[in-house]
């Protein structure tokens, strides 16, 4: 029988489980997403809006208002990239675009998927709108918005 080669590499994996507390602001945010709308928190000092909402405005290090403010589900693409390759844990198969979206009137931005009839039409500054899932399909997650679509595609 062939002798086995000496051991040089060992495979293993590390698995840890979590249960992250939302806190009041994230709680409200996801509850509102389930209802089909975005809410923001407003800094008591500079008045700017934060989505996702946070308890603190990092720039001012000041409290944000307790009451969250509904904001439009339209905005613009700040930056984006087109994904052409596959990797484990991918949400949808390539090709697709993912970008940083700034909702109208809101100061902070977040990531989401961008869908377009022609991916080449996506540019920095392109106007987009959230495509919401049907009410009974929404769960209280970022993916209650299926993707952001180009406003021009809707017309």
């Amino acid at each position, binding site marked *: 029988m062939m002798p086995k080669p000496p051991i040089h590499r060992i495979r293993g994996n590390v698995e840890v489980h979590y249960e992250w507390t939302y806190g009041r602001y994230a709680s409200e945010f996801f509850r509102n997403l389930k209802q089909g709308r975005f809410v923001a928190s407003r800094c008591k000092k500079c008045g700017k809006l934060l989505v996702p909402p946070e308890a603190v405005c990092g720039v001012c*290090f000041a409290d944000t208002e307790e009451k969250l403010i509904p904001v439009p589900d339209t905005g613009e693409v700040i930056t984006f990239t087109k994904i052409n390759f596959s990797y484990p844990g991918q949400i949808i198969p390539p090709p697709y675009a993912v970008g940083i979206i700034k909702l109208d009137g809101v100061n902070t931005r977040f990531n989401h998927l961008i869908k377009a009839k022609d991916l080449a039409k996506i540019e920095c500054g392109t106007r987009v709108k959230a495509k919401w899932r049907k009410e009974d399909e929404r769960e209280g997650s970022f993916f209650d918005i299926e993707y952001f679509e180009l406003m021009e595609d809707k017309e």
Partner: protein
Amino acid sequence: MRKVAVVAGTQSGYERKNRSESTPELIYRVTKQVLKNAGITRDEIDTVVVGSCDVMDGISISNVYAVASSAAFLKDESKVEEDASFAAFYAWLRILSGAFDTALVVAWGKGSETEMPLYTGLIFDPLYQRPFGLEAVSGFALQAKAYMEKYGVNEEDAARVVVKNRKNARLNPYAQVRKECSVEEVLASEPLATPLKKLDTPPISDGACAVILAEEHRARELCENPVWIKGAGSAVDSYHLGYRDLTELKACALAAQKAYEMAGIKNPKKEIDVAEVSENFSFQEMMLYEALGFCDRGRGPDLIRKGTTEMNGALPVNPSGGALCANPTPATGLIRLAEAALQLSGQAGERQVKNAKTALVYGTSGLCFQSNMVFVLDRD
């Protein structure tokens, strides 16, 4: 060498499950509070050092997530991924360098959000130790057994440590476990890994702690009773449990020696008025008495039997209740520092040790006191 003081501190209060605050909200609360306690704004903080643990938080580089909450936006900021007594050490060194005059140190841990044994299990290397499913309790149990064997220490002695710390915690509004217990209850509690039973072990905790350090001139401007860092020392031992004599705590003794030398302490038993130590487990507190020089080797149980380390004893240890009463890893060591500072500035309320002038602070990382951090604090 510059003189550096603790000028303010705060603690969040500790509980088994904080489901009302996200980690960033918890950090924000203590950071706001400590700045308020110091009477300064975040503009007057030159550097931020956080103490947190990526695996606990479930975020690689757990501090980058906390920038807004820890008042670190656009500031000089870094993290120490170890017990947060090391975060305080690092902040102290930054001020000593002369590059900074004030430092904010903030540490947090939410044990309820992960599975603590999975986390402590990962401290063990994948090849030689992790296959056995070792974690903190079984690791410290091997050490406790070796200690019992070497010096004839028994489980009653260890139970007395638990009784003492829980009694002390009743007077500490921040503590998590505030219910007194008897020696019998400790001995009858669920065996986990002999000789450690449930009540010999620390709780799983959520909480955060923050302190502000400042160099001398600023410290005197900011507070009436600055608590000076008089001495500091750290040392780390071998990694594999079997490579060390687990009863010797060599690196702990070395760290203490360095801190005592810097602080000019020749006889710790006489010169230390109060000690806050991260004992973690019951037996281990007695081992620390020995390694920190409060008594001879093997004589730790004498101190607990005679009541020397009780609140009204000659050298009270853990008036806060220690890690046995609240253990939001990795904030534990910073909490010891915050508590010692309260003692020396006369702000420890019902758990105040009278006329405390010199305090010993001990923090640790890794298994069985592999990594050790000792501070000696005093006041004018």
